[in-house]
């Protein structure tokens, strides 16, 4: 049967073009790969190669024709034993238009596919009465979490700069080399982009790497591997491949280390589908959530804080203390205003709540713990009770976690709000070095107190 040769699309956006030149005449034989014509698009002149073998039976569109639509029949190819008389006298049957060209109509007619409702996240496990509570630093809690998971699963290993022989730049991996050896506690060269990729590749092959960044500031070198390779692989592979890797390390401002070492990346990572983003405050949350993160089959960003490493909190002494990812925790109950924070932002929120209590304002303080997926139901439930909301974080103010919370609460709980939502954040400046300027750049307790007074109209 004669084969129609169609006007080809030669770029992602081409709809029509000029048939500049025929390089074969009627009666010429062609083999696949032979250049048969030249076509001008808006970008370039392109050669058209034959795909099938045969003889050019008829040239339908003469050279020099402009505005030839993609998929119009431009020539007819005859196979073995066929002649021009085999070509139908009527216009050759139009090739069905590709689905891509039709796509806009049905998509426009259909309602936009609704996002599935968020899966129910279980609450924190009950801690049995009488469980011993052990004062533990955040640093120790993180180490204990890694050690417990490494004992339980040989596929879990930790890699990063100075994690092994140096015992961790911030001593979070202290003792792990002694217990687990160099196979599972791997010192890397200073090569963030490279070792992040190695970690993701190892995860794709079935291991469960914990990749430590000495600080998340350096993870910007590795951003492509985190976002393009780790976060998107499950989707791009239709669910076949995934990268169960935990990227962890200190995030945000420490003290006097200035602009390049003092940035909070919570909102950056929270932007990306395919990641889970955790930012704990207490030692118990650090332990329970890191254990959950290591077991989770998704790529996880686990944001710690250098200043919090030395803070001590009670941690329940349980064999296997694991917390749910994606669940906020009511850190302090109250009825007058809701304060939402996470990570080191909680230190301002807690102190502000103490001060406010002295003024007769009882704040409900929510520790978000997980930034993505975000536990908005817990926030909204609180706002329904208090009618007022203040968010607190150290990151930059534009497109912050606070502005995201404010947007969604406005959309989903507008009728319950008695005042505009206020967002307390770091200032819109690179972190300065000078002690006085650094203090000004970070949020402070007074700003939180003032924001609460403003939304409760008690200023």
């Amino acid at each position, binding site marked *: 049967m004669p084969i129609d040769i169609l006007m080809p699309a030669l770029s992602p956006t081409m709809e029509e073009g000029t048939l500049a030149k025929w390089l074969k005449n009627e009666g010429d034989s062609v083999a696949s790969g032979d250049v048969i014509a030249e076509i001008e698009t808006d970008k370039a002149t392109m050669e*058209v190669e034959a795909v099938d073998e045969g003889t050019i039976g008829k040239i339908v569109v003469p050279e020099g024709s402009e505005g030839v639509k993609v998929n119009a029949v431009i020539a007819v190819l005859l196979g073995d034993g066929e002649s021009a008389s085999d070509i139908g006298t009527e216009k050759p049957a139009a*090739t069905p238009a590709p689905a891509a060209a039709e796509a806009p109509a049905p998509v426009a007619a259909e309602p936009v596919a609704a996002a599935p409702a968020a899966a129910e996240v279980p609450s924190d496990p009950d801690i049995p009465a009488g469980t011993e509570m052990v004062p533990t630093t955040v640093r120790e809690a993180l180490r204990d979490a890694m050690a417990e998971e490494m004992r339980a699963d040989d596929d879990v290993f930790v890699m990063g700069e100075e994690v092994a022989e140096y015992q961790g730049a911030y001593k979070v991996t202290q003792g792990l080399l002694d217990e687990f050896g160099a*196979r599972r506690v791997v010192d890397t060269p200073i090569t963030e982009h490279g070792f992040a990729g*190695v970690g993701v590749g190892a*995860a*794709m092959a079935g291991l469960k790497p914990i990749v430590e960044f000495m600080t998340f500031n350096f993870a910007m070198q590795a951003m492509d591997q985190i976002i393009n390779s780790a976060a998107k692989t499950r989707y791009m592979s239709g669910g076949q491949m995934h990268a169960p890797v935990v990227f962890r390390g200190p995030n945000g401002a420490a003290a006097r280390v200035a602009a390049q070492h003092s940035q909070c990346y919570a909102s950056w990572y929270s932007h990306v589908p395919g990641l889970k983003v955790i930012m704990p405050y207490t030692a118990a949350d650090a332990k329970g959530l890191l254990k959950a993160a290591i077991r989770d089959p998704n790529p996880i960003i686990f944001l710690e804080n250098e200043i919090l490493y030395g803070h001590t909190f009670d941690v329940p002494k349980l064999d296997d203390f694991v917390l749910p990812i994606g669940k906020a925790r009511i850190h302090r109950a109250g009825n007058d205003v809701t304060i939402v924070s996470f990570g080191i932002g909680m230190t301002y929120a807690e102190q502000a709540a103490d001060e406010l209590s002295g003024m007769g304002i009882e704040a409900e303080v929510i520790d978000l713990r997980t930034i993505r997926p975000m536990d908005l139901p817990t926030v909204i439930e609180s706002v329904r009770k208090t009618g007022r909301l203040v968010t607190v974080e150290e990151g930059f103010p534009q497109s912050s976690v606070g502005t995201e919370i404010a947007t969604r609460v406005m959309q989903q709980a507008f009728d319950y709000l008695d005042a505009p939502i206020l967002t307390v954040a770091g200032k819109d400046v690179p972190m300065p070095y000078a002690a006085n300027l650094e203090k000004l750049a970070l949020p402070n307790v007074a700003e939180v107190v003032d924001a609460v007074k403003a939304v409760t109209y008690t200023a």
Partner: protein
Amino acid sequence: MAPRKSAASAGRRTGASKSAKSRSSKSAKPAIGTVIAEFDKEKELAVYREMLLIRRFEEKAGQLYGMGFIGGFCHLYIGQEAVITGIQHAMIDGDQLITGYRDHGHMLAAGMTARGVMAELTGRRSGYSRGKGGSMHMFSFEKNFFGGHGIVGAQVPLGTGLAFANRYKDNGNVSIAFYGDGASNQGQVYESFNMAELWELPVVYVVENNRYAMGTAVSRASAQTDFSQRGVSFNIPGYQVDGMDVRAVYAAAEAALEFARSGNGPIILEMLTYRYRGHSMSDPAKYRSKDEVQKMRSEHDPIEQVKVRLLEKGWATEDELKAIDKSVRDVVADSAEFAQTDPEPDPSELYTDILA
């Protein structure tokens, strides 16, 4: 002079144990890149058919792109078929493949179905990524094909990570990481080289040097155009191979895989190859002469070379080769038909496969 001398000797001392070990283990290897493997009739026929499948598949993909069935970016492998075909024949079960965006040939060679690959190209639900990945982002866990990566060079650390996992599990497998002459100038390639040699990871780095990174000739982009030597400062041996001769590719791959599998660490194979088509579908390839392309096609075509040998040795007649061509065309035509009629993904697929 004294300080310089002492620094130099100190350098020798500190590097002594490692480089001595490297030299002793690495000098025992065969002259990789100079050997042409002897193929028997069965193997010649096999590689002929496999390379032809890639070529016909790519020609059909180009045609479907022209008809609007395939969208976005589409990078064809035509001309480079001998590289993946020769390497695939040297692999053992469990060895992993990972490459960049010019990946259709690798997938077919890995044993992924023409239907599944073509349906992914047309964005249909039976595609390997259920229509959500497209030409540049396809995977097969079953066939140990780890993608299909759209960011130039990103697959090299990932492939190194696959090798890390092989060593961690001590499973005797080797990962093969493909990249191009363009990706060779990405920093993460050298970060990978350093770690792979430092940890003696079982990985074969395969540079498919097709002479052009998009429209830029290697000499215009690379200070060192011998890509096999790009591992020198990491003590990684490297060899240039005639990437248009499937027997040379096979021999080099067999030796390189053996080298990596035996615990010697990484090795680089530079495959001297050529792509006949433009970088992508919208590239008219004006940066090179028609004569250059024609010369490669007429004198070095990887498939034609096998065809000539088969006929000369009397291992196949013209008619038998035509029959192979016919059966390959049937497979490709079937995949194209399937890829045009398979439904698009259900709208509910928009929100699946983001998190487990």
